[in-house]
């Protein structure tokens, strides 16, 4: 309507709007041009000559174009509306106080960054119970921790202190900050943006750490790929996480990762960028060059992440049809390290060595504790028993993140006698069931070192651990008590919470717990109890003091003719057998009893005489194992299939079982 009249009353048609819209707009005061200063000078001829340039009234335009004033008014306001763009006021939000508008540096707000579809899916998966989240914040467990924030703090407070140590090569906090900033800028220039997933397959080297921090600086999400993974596993995971970039080695012992990633771009539309460390690979960017030549990102264009941002996407198992990826933000992940560092008595004066790969939660946990405290990280690129022992002797770490298999392997090779490991003040063993006998032996060999156990999962992080100062009985026989911010309970298969001393499923909840598997609703259905507690799948017993002994896996329970038993204690006994290095007992299908126990074993180095099933049964019987729990089949294998944290993959052993008769 114009002046109370409708367009029909005025006689406005779409054709009229189209015909006269532009000329009416241009003749109106919306576009004004003045030559000289005619009004002030009262140069009437010039005033008249410039009337049109300075903007005509609607009536004047009407007279000029042969339209009524009302028609002009209508056309003008429609044209103004059509051209009007909202949001210009937003430009003012960054001006003033010394800052002025510069067109070349300005991006209209609607054209500014927006999360991609994949990034929004990730963010949507970060759903927490609001009451629990509020509790975590009230307790101070969730705060503003981010890795870029921690790194900046150390670069400022202890710039010249070592952050990464690998023999002669030392990178200070200042240098680490500078390199990660440069790489972040280079990654940004390569198109990697906030919320993007970046897959990294690198060993425990400085470039992994720098890449990790650079990815975090951009607010991108790191998804680690275990080093043993090859093309088919990688493709499955990258299809699931929709990574836009991959950082890997140019070449490895038995394959060419960079070339393989480049080939995968054909089948993975999200994968755009491949960055390789090592020799030049056509089509891939050079990680070393990016670190050396990148320009730190602009704080306005690439704001640092906040604690609620997604941060890590870690695969727990399953590289085929339904990968299980645990998604963490900084809240969940870093609260665990911040709250636990004092429990481990780690300070900025310490040096931390992880034998576990950084591609795994346990290795990352070690890094995070170092990043929180300002301790140095001693780097062991790839675990081998001699390399670990030599690294300890050379770089003198004070804290060791390790697995029972690591220590067992060192013991088997006599490395404790060959290397000086006395720098260690604490060892944290995790990743697999820890034989008590191994803990006792380790404690005897390093009397100045607190041997502790830790139980955790990618989903729960470090949920339980023994503390320095705990008795050897606790340290050897249990996985310890809950970490700050974590709660644990033992539940029956029916969901009933069990009392102390009763075996059941270990369930946990707390501020470090992940919100759920990304894009795997079926897994989430199974993973959580009705009241939100995470079902670990581990069997455990909790004592009155809250110490939890892990007794096995629910899936490992053998059902022999209706009699169910957990073979974990039998495996511990076999692991201590003088001829055996490792053992695993798995259920073997049986047409009569349903299942029988089959023992898989590997032999210690130098053992030539192969033990018989009968000999092992005699050994076990002599140590109180009842007849119905004895293994009924023996398979001697050269190597155990191991996870990256050297946990035996029993599912793969089951594939080796003989067919039922």
């Amino acid at each position, binding site marked *: 309507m114009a002046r109370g009249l409708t367009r029909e009353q005025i006689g406005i048609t779409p054709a009229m709007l189209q015909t006269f819209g532009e000329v009416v707009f241009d003749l109106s005061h919306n576009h004004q041009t003045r030559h000289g200063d005619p009004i002030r000078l*009262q140069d009437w001829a010039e005033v008249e000559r410039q009337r049109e340039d300075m903007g005509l009234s609607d009536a004047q335009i009407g007279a000029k174009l042969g339209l009524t004033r009302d028609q002009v008014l209508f056309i003008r306001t429609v044209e103004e509306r059509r051209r009007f763009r909202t949001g210009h006021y937003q430009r003012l939000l960054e001006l003033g106080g010394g800052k002025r508008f510069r067109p070349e540096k300005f991006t209209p707000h609607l054209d500014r960054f927006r999360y991609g579809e994949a990034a929004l899916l990730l963010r949507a998966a970060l759903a927490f119970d609001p009451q629990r989240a509020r509790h975590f914040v009230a307790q101070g467990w969730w705060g503003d921790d981010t890795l870029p924030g921690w790194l900046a703090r150390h670069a400022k407070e202890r710039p010249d202190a070592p952050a990464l140590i690998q023999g002669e090569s030392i990178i200070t906090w200042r240098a680490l900050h500078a390199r990660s900033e440069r790489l972040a800028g280079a990654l940004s220039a390569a198109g990697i943006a906030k919320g993007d997933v970046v897959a990294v397959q690198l060993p425990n080297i400085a470039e992994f750490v720098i890449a990790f921090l650079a990815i975090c600086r951009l607010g991108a999400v790191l998804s680690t790929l275990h080093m043993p993974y090859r093309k088919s596993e990688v493709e499955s995971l990258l299809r699931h996480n929709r990574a836009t970039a991959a950082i890997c080695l140019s070449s490895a012992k038995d394959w060419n990762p960079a070339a393989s990633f480049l080939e995968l771009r054909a089948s993975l539309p999200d994968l755009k960028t491949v960055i390789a460390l090592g020799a030049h690979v056509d089509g891939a960017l050079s990680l070393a060059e990016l670190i050396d030549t990148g320009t730190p990102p602009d704080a306005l264009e690439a704001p640092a992440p906040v604690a609620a941002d997604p941060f890590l996407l870690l695969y727990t198992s399953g590289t085929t049809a339904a990968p299980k990826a645990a998604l963490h933000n900084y809240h969940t992940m870093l609260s665990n390290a911040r709250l636990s560092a004092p429990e481990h008595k780690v300070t900025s004066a310490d040096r931390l060595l992880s034998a576990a790969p950084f591609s795994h939660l346990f290795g990352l946990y070690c890094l995070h504790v170092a990043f929180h405290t300002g301790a140095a990280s001693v780097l062991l690129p790839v675990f081998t028993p001699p390399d670990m022992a030599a690294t300890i002797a050379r770089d003198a770490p004070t804290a060791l993140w390790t697995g029972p298999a690591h220590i067992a392997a060192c013991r088997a090779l006599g490395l404790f006698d060959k290397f000086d490991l006395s720098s260690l003040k604490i060892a944290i063993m995790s990743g697999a069931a820890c034989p008590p006998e191994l803990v006792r032996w380790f404690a005897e060999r390093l009397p100045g070192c607190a041997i502790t156990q830790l139980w955790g999962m990618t989903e729960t992080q470090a949920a339980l651990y023994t503390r320095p100062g705990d008795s050897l009985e606790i340290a050897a026989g249990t996985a310890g008590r809950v970490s700050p911010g974590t709660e644990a309970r033992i539940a029956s298969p029916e969901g009933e919470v069990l009392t102390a001393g009763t075996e059941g499923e270990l369930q946990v909840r707390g501020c470090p717990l992940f919100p759920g598997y990304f894009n795997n609703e079926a897994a989430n259905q199974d993973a959580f109890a009705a009241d939100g507690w995470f079902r670990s799948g581990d069997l455990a017993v909790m004592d009155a003091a809250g110490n939890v002994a892990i007794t096995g896996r629910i899936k490992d329970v053998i059902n022999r003719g209706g009699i169910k038993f957990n073979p974990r204690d039998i495996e511990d006994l076999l692991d201590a057998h003088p001829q055996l290095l490792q053992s695993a007992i798995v259920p073997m299908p049986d047409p009569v009893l349903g299942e029988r126990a089959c023992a898989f074993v590997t032999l210690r180095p130098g053992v030539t005489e192969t033990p018989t099933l009968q000999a092992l049964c005699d050994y076990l019987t002599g140590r109180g194992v009842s007849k119905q729990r004895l293994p009924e089949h023996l398979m001697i294998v050269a190597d155990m299939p191991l996870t990256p944290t050297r946990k035996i993959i029993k599912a793969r052993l089951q594939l080796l079982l003989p067919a039922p008769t």
Partner: protein
Amino acid sequence: MPLPVIDPVQAKQTIFEYCKKKGALAVGVADLAAIERIAPPGHRPSDLMPRVKSVISVGVGGQTAGVWSLPAKAMAYFGSTETRAYAVAYGAAFFIESKFGVPSIYCPPDMDPDGGPRVPLQSLKLHAELAGIGARSLAGDILLHPEFGYMYFASIFTELELPPDAPMAENPCPAPSCVDMYRKIGQTPCMKFCPVQCLSGEIDDAGKQKVMRYDMAKCAEMSQQYESVPAMLMEAMAAETTAQREDALFDPDNKMLWYKVSAGSGGWFAQCFECMRACPIATQAPASDPIRRTHLLRQVKADKA
């Protein structure tokens, strides 16, 4: 009873003293015939007040030096002092009627309800320019004064005949520093730093304005956000999902607009002030700082005493 004889010169001085006492920085009388000649039909003083004899223009405002360093979003609120001009003009209209017994009006400053948006009832800027208290600048014809810098204006129409003032003899825009900048980069500060790049123009060899170009439509996108409200509603109606509809109506930016419509003020129709923030005349004129300029008011009192 015969009406008292009014001395136009004395009356003008009395009115000026009143306005300055009430806070006007500058007062002038515009040549009515010139306004009537320049203003388009429907927007002439006689269209509003048929027996008008004089148009008085008052200028107030300016900013403390500190205001110009405010963040722009705060400047949008603090920058506008136009209501002070209206108050002076409103009081002056009453003063003229009570003192001289002559009908007077405070000229409405707002949009012409009959003319649609972006069309004022009267051009207060034209009144002020012809009254000699401001000259058109390269910044979209915003008026500048060499002593008071950037002001807001209001007008009083009266049937009292007052001798008109002449327009300013010199235009302070462009300032010498702006000419220097133009010679180097082809832009003055107001052109360069306009957030919507709505200003352009040329300066001649003598350092005077040659051409001023002003894209008012672009400027309005920044400073006259009333168009945003129907745009927001259109967006809400066109939304395909509930979430999009909620965003269209309730996202933080749009909620601010509702606030401005309902309870807020200032930013809704506020200029962005960036052209004036960059203007040396607006920010550095001798008496553009109200604290420094109070001596003028004191001087008026002293002169009167």
